[in-house]
């Protein structure tokens, strides 16, 4: 419980930093920290495989790509702020929280309590078992999606075709 509170607090702080830091690199590093903390939260939920994949794919690959692009474009200047949008955005977030939080905080009643986790729950074997039996078609579609993304990125980033 204490662990959860620490992790939750830190991840909220870091995700606030992502949004309210004016320096892009700092935002990116804060996002890396948030992703890492969420991966640790996954580990506390007995999803070791997904947690490790989160670090490997999100923190290790996607965010490096972000940093790479930031360094390549080197925007340098801090962006300006506009008060109107700022107020609007904060208002939207607060409204969203007002709608979501009361509903979510007593949704525990609608669901059965913590199901007893088996020894193999969240292990690579059990993940692969569902991935390659119940979810074969989405899996194949996802691989096609990745192929499309690769081709698209190459075409878009090429200088003159």
């Amino acid at each position, binding site marked *: 419980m204490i662990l959860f509170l620490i992790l939750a607090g830190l991840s909220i702080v870091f995700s606030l930093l992502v949004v309210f830091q004016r320096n892009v690199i700092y935002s990116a590093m804060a996002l890396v920290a948030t*992703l890492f903390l969420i991966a640790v939260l996954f580990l506390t939920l007995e999803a070791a495989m*997904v947690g490790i994949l989160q670090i490997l*794919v999100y923190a290790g690959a996607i965010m490096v790509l972000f940093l790479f692009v930031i360094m390549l474009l080197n925007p340098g200047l801090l962006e300006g702020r506009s008060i109107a949008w700022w107020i609007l955005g904060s208002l939207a977030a607060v409204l969203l929280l007002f709608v979501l939080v009361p509903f979510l905080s007593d949704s525990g009643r609608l669901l059965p309590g913590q199901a007893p*986790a088996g020894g193999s729950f969240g292990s690579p074997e059990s993940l692969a078992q*569902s991935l390659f039996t119940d979810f074969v078609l989405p899996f194949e579609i996802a691989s096609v999606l990745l192929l499309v993304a690769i081709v698209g990125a190459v075409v878009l980033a090429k200088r003159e075709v």
Partner: protein
Amino acid sequence: MVPLNYYLVLSAIIFAIGVTGVIIRRNIIVILMSIELMLNAVNLTFIAFSRSLGSMDGQVIVFFVMTVAAAEAVVGLAIIISVFRHRQTLDPREMQLLKW
């Protein structure tokens, strides 16, 4: 053991922060990062429900969300690079050539 709704509230908060980022930031890279934040909040919900219901399906969905996020980031960043080459800006409010 931490109850399920704590995780749900946490993910709602992170999601709301992501929404704020998309609205208030004027740097398209940060907007993309805020979208990643929202995706992660949703992933946390999936994992929490997966643990609570004792079913692996939630984790598999998270696996797919990661795949889609990777594809989205790759294509999004490629678009950002090619836009930056033409217009020398990262501000989405200046990318309005199609606006009338």
